[in-house]
């Protein structure tokens, strides 16, 4: 069965980055996106706007800093919901703050990835987000198989 990924991310560029990376890796995963925690919950539970995801995603890639409902709030909601609490969640954030990491770890996560912001001083080219995403997606999806 075709596996699905739910990407909860408010940054358009990061979404594109993940989409392109999936294409480059050449795996056939279905990518569902949500721009914030509320939309993601709607998609997981089904609402007037969105039909419920069928089946539930194999993995959720979750940003932390988002409008309306942030990653941390979303995570605590699904961990309270018996139907959703088993879902695998990997945090992908630019936040290196220790309290974000420890708070999400307490709620149960499968990984915590800090998106690169620094540029490699020795090359002209900024570190590519895409390379980062590819590397980790390959790893994550490999573990799913």
């Amino acid at each position, binding site marked *: 069965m075709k596996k699905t990924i739910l990407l909860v991310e408010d940054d358009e560029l990061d979404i*594109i980055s993940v989409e392109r990376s999936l294409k480059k890796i050449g795996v056939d995963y279905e990518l569902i996106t949500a721009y914030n925690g509320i939309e993601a919950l709607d998609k997981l539970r089904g609402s007037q706007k969105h039909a419920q995801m069928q089946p539930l995603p194999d993995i959720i890639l979750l940003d932390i800093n988002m409008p309306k409902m942030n990653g941390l709030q979303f995570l605590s909601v699904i961990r309270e919901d018996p139907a959703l609490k088993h879902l695998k969640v990997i945090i992908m954030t*630019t936040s290196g703050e220790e309290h974000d990491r420890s708070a999400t770890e307490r709620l149960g996560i499968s990984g915590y990835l800090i998106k690169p*912001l*620094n*540029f490699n*001083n020795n090359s*002209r080219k*900024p570190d590519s987000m*895409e390379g980062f995403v590819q590397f980790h997606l390959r790893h994550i999806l490999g573990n799913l198989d």
Partner: protein
Amino acid sequence: MKLATQISLGFFIAISIDLVDSYVNYSLTQKVNTNTDFLTNSEVVIRTSSNLNRDLVDMQNALRGYLLSGDRRFLIRYDSGLSTIPELIKQERLLIEPSSLQISRLDSISMIHNIWLGYANQIIDAKSKAIADPALNWRYEKLFKSQFTLNAGKNYNERIAAIFRSFDQHEYDNRQKRRAALAASIKATDRFSLFFSLLLVIVGSALAFYLVRKIARRIDSMVKLAEKISTGDFATVNDDQTDELTSLSHSLNLMSQKLSWNIDELEKRNDELNQFAYVVSHDLKAPIRGISNVVQWIKEDIQDEISPAMEKYLDIIPERLKRMADLINGLLDYARIGRSKFPKEEVDVSVLVKELADVIVPKEYYFTIGDLPVLFTEKILLEQVFSNLLSNAVKYTSTDDGHIRVSCTEQAGVYEFEVSDNGIGIEEQYHGKIFEMFQTLREKHDEESTGIGLAIVKKIIDENGGTIRVLSSLDKGAKFLFTWPKNET
């Protein structure tokens, strides 16, 4: 109480003690003078009394002589006594104290003498009449044998003599008493004088000690406060006195408080600014990354369809973005200095410099190092300083016979490191400016320099309590010398 008042009061007390002493001495002198006067007077009294006594005896003898011989020449002394004795009594009366025992004695002498004189005149008269007319001798004989002999003669002498004895005795006793009193007075004065002199010394010294100590202590407390302020400890002194120094201590306290407040305020502002710079630089990086990603995607997606010119343009974007990112990283680094605490560790400076040079200094340069120490310090900061200075040296030195050298000299409490090159150098007029932010001496579009490196270096060294200076002139290379605290392991 004001210090001037206290000092004046001290002087007043000392002078008062001295005045009392002088007064005691003065009154002693008065007493001595009075006593001398008294003695002189007493001498005259005794002399007058003995003259009186003598004249009285002379008169008696004269009378006796005349009565025995009938020679009138004997009466010369008697006659002179008639005039001298009242005169002497009058003198004596003036010399002795009125209404005293001596006056009554003198009165008794005078009275007894007058009684005697009465008889004497009678008998002289009888005698002279008897000489002129022997028929009248019986009257004289009768007079002579009866009253005079019995009463006037012996009785008179004894009584007068007794009175004179007690008169003189009284005078001598008086003198004795006076002398004793004077001696006691001199002794007392000596004691008083000694006491007051000692008192003056003690009170004077105590007052001087008290005042000097008080002033010294207060000035000392203020000097200490000023020293504390100069080391950045904005304490205040607790001054409960009210005198001329109070306004000074008050001003010092006020200054300390204001300085403390201002520095707190300054630190707060600085913290805000650092926080602001950090947040801004951090948030500026996200869009750059985004743009960079999009350009990357465009290139990937249409690589085969674009012209070489377009490809070149597309390459320029990440280059400029890299420069912008460098600038932001520089700002981040600059903001982070003093904001973050870095761990101290053992740093072998020669290893550190060699590792940095491997990355920063291209192989074409002649790179040498001198003897470099091992320190216990914040490695990240020292690394940043060397990295910036080495990058600078490379940037402004041509590869053609370029020399770069790092060396170190030991000084009191610090090491002075030197990073020198034989590059284009810096004109002296710019030596102060190069450590300011965004000052580069090349054109603005020089992609290599962000103008923040030396500002970071200077900030790190300032935070570390060191100094940095540059020795250079145009085309003569540059020497950057900076000091670093000597926290050896």
